[in-house]
């Protein structure tokens, strides 16, 4: 009896070990049977949560387990590793480049190759850590190369936007005029891609050049072409609508348009604090009109 109890109590010492084993087994349950696509999905989820090591583990396992029919998944897993190297905690540009280049060399004409080419330039741009990167010309050329090499790809559309934004940030003499020229040409080419962003770029460039009426007109176009994420309550940009109203009022003097925009703001965003500013700005327009009417009447009677 005593012997049995002692053995029992001694056995309790192994309880923590047994618990650890159970936890370890529990953590791993179900994983071995995951498909490569599920591993990539899990990798991105871990990446989102900033768990880069676990993300890297998932992507690596996807690469190991992907069969010949899952070539695209394998490349996507490499793409995942490239992004961890580029934007994860360690931010190793050389390693990132290696992964991105691997995708480009293994599948040079794929969409993923275009994204990989863009990834190399984005990593350089973001790692530069500056609004006015020292190697802006190199970045400019890099974006231009992605556009030239993969002209029909979505990555090229992104590259075009990043390129023009870079030019506006660095703001060398003549850069804003060049942005206006290139963006206008793209819009005039009949593209349907990213029109909201293109008009936004034009608006920014024109505003920087103090071409306020053009900036306002571009802003209105940007809002009109805005692509709305139906699932995101913050997708409809209240700030953009507010800015358009202010620009219509103070830059263009188009009170009819301003009133319309402000009314739409109040209707779309009834609980936005700026509803009060909209009310104030509407009153300011009434005041301004009354003041100018009076002044015109004075001019008329003087004549």
């Amino acid at each position: 009896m005593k012997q049995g109890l002692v053995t029992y109590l001694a056995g309790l010492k192994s309880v923590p070990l047994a618990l650890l084993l159970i936890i370890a087994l529990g953590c791993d349950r179900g994983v071995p049977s995951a498909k490569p696509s599920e591993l990539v999905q899990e990798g991105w989820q871990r990446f989102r949560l900033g768990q880069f090591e676990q993300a890297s583990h998932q992507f690596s396992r996807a690469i190991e387990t992907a069969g010949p029919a899952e070539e695209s998944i394998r490349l996507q897993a490499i793409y995942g590793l490239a992004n961890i190297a580029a934007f994860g905690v360690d931010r190793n540009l050389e390693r990132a480049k290696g992964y991105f280049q691997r995708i480009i060399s293994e599948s040079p004409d794929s969409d993923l190759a275009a994204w990989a080419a863009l990834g190399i330039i984005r990593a350089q741009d973001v790692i530069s850590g500056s609004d006015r990167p020292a190697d802006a010309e190199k970045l400019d050329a890099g974006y231009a190369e992605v556009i030239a090499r993969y002209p029909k790809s979505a990555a090229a559309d992104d590259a075009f936007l990043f390129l023009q934004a870079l030019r506006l940030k660095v703001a060398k003499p003549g850069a804003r005029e060049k942005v206006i020229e290139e963006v206008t040409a793209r819009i005039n080419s009949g593209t349907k891609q990213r029109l909201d962003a293109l008009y936004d770029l034009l608006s920014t460039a024109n505003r920087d050049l103090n071409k306020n009426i053009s900036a306002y007109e571009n802003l209105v176009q940007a809002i009109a072409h805005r692509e709305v994420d139906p699932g995101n309550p913050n997708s409809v940009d209240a700030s953009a609508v507010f800015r358009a109203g202010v620009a219509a009022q103070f830059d263009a003097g188009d009170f009819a348009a301003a009133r319309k925009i402000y009314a739409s703001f109040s209707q779309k965003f009834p609980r936005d604090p700026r509803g009060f500013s909209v009310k104030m700005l509407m009153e300011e327009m009434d005041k301004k009109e009354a003041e100018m009417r009076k002044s015109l009447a004075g001019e008329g009677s003087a004549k």
Partner: protein
Amino acid sequence: MIGKALRLAPAVILIAAFSWAAISVAVRSVAEAPPDVKVIRIGHWQLEGGVRDGFNQMGAEFAALPEVIKKYGKVRIVQDAIPEGIYGQWISTQMIAATAPDIVEVGLGLPGPIWLAYQSRYFYPLTDMANAPNPFNAGTDLAGMALKDTMGDGMRSGYQEELQEYTRVPLARFTSRVFYNRDLLKKLTGLSAPPRDFRSFTAVCEQISKAHDPTGQPYVPIASSKYHVGMWIGNLFDPLTYSAVFKADFNRDGFVGNDETFAAIRSGALSFDSKLVRAKYDGLKQMVRYFQAGFTGLTRDEAVFLFAQQRAVFICTGTWDAGSLIQQAEGKFTVGATIYPQPAQNDPEYGSLVFGPNFDPAGQGFPFGITRFSKHPGLARDFLLYLASRAGNARLNQIIGWIPATLGAPLPPLLAGFEPVNTGMYTALNTDLGGQTVVKSQQLVSLLQTDPSYKVDQFLTEFGQFYRSQGVADWEEAQRDWRRAITNNERSLAVMRGEALLRAADKPSDVSWIRYRDYLSHRQLFQDLGHVRQVRMVVNPDATVRAPYAYSPEALARIKADLSHSSATTGPTP
């Protein structure tokens, strides 16, 4: 023999205790979840009596609904009400052990990233639920409307930006109000309700401060503490800075950020001597005269104690505390509620800064999500929908004494007549640039509150000098933070792109690509461009640049032309 028994005693006690615990748990489990009953567990940290009563009653009513009985049979709602202090540890244990309740209140006790990770791994996304009508709103004007559109804030507070999904349903709204002891106010001033304007309110406070209780001690007009003073500042004095919008909102988004405030001060568009800056601190200085001595060193509970002891007439606090205040006053005095006493438009000092009521919204809170451990996720969804329906939400909040989250549900009786104000003056001055300026501001504001000889002029001069000279270092640190945010955005973009490639590589119209493009344009590209513009303004402040809300020459010409044209076509106005 006795020695042997003594040696075995610890083991016997241990075994007995374990057996008792095991039997208790088993018996309780059977009592809570009889075999023929579907049980929904709801976990939260609200220990106020009203909340538990609310869930009990709502659970019973829900279980008795014919459509629920028809669909699910016998249903029981069981609560796990966990103290705030251990909620984080409790929820972590439940999640890791896969024993979490079906419905869980989200947000307390753990850092944001941990809650984010839990929501990603252990909670159901509720986006489809948010976009579908709430069947429990049938027969009302909300019938057929998406759940999110039936909530006060469009359910924005239930949306998790990083996950791009709705994950929570908010069930109540909160704001803060000034509560008062009706009986004491009447006794000391003859008034049955306090005045609503600042000047008259401070006059009443002055009157109260001169009155003494039977023991000869003076009454305190306002019970306050370090917890409460921020509410007075935020709700009463910050809105006096509203007109800074028209001077300092350089990016024209309708708000004034800390960088815009810094740019405005550096360019001279605003100064620490301007009326609106002075008014904020001057008003505070006037108000703190009516707080009890040493309030900055006191906690929230100490202020509530003073109020409950009938030593003070007023106290401000969140509507979440209203039930507790009433409970503490029960049998002793009647609690009333009122709005913060805003200066009137004809106020001799602050009237020119008042353009309307103060913005006084009620933020959505009391948010619940559904865990993946639920054995009856459909039933859990239905119960949550029931609680979020107009009738269900009104009833739940009526029991608790909080403000309902669903549109059209009436306010609880104590707060009736003091509806949240969704359109009004809001703060437009943010001098919190970073570590150094925040610490200095806290030190000097504390001095302003506690030292009667420290004047507002001294504060404005001292803080103004510090802000202009040391603010640059804080601002530069903020720029480094900005660059870090750009990298974080790039990470988010990488995930969104990676998931879109996996899910719909060849379908650019898929919602995953729309999300990606939306994020790229509006969170990365144009926020960065706007920021660069602001940086230029701070680095090269130029007072000659047209104010953000001033008419351009082209605009003035257009307005004139339009008016001339309209008077030419309509003729002179009689």
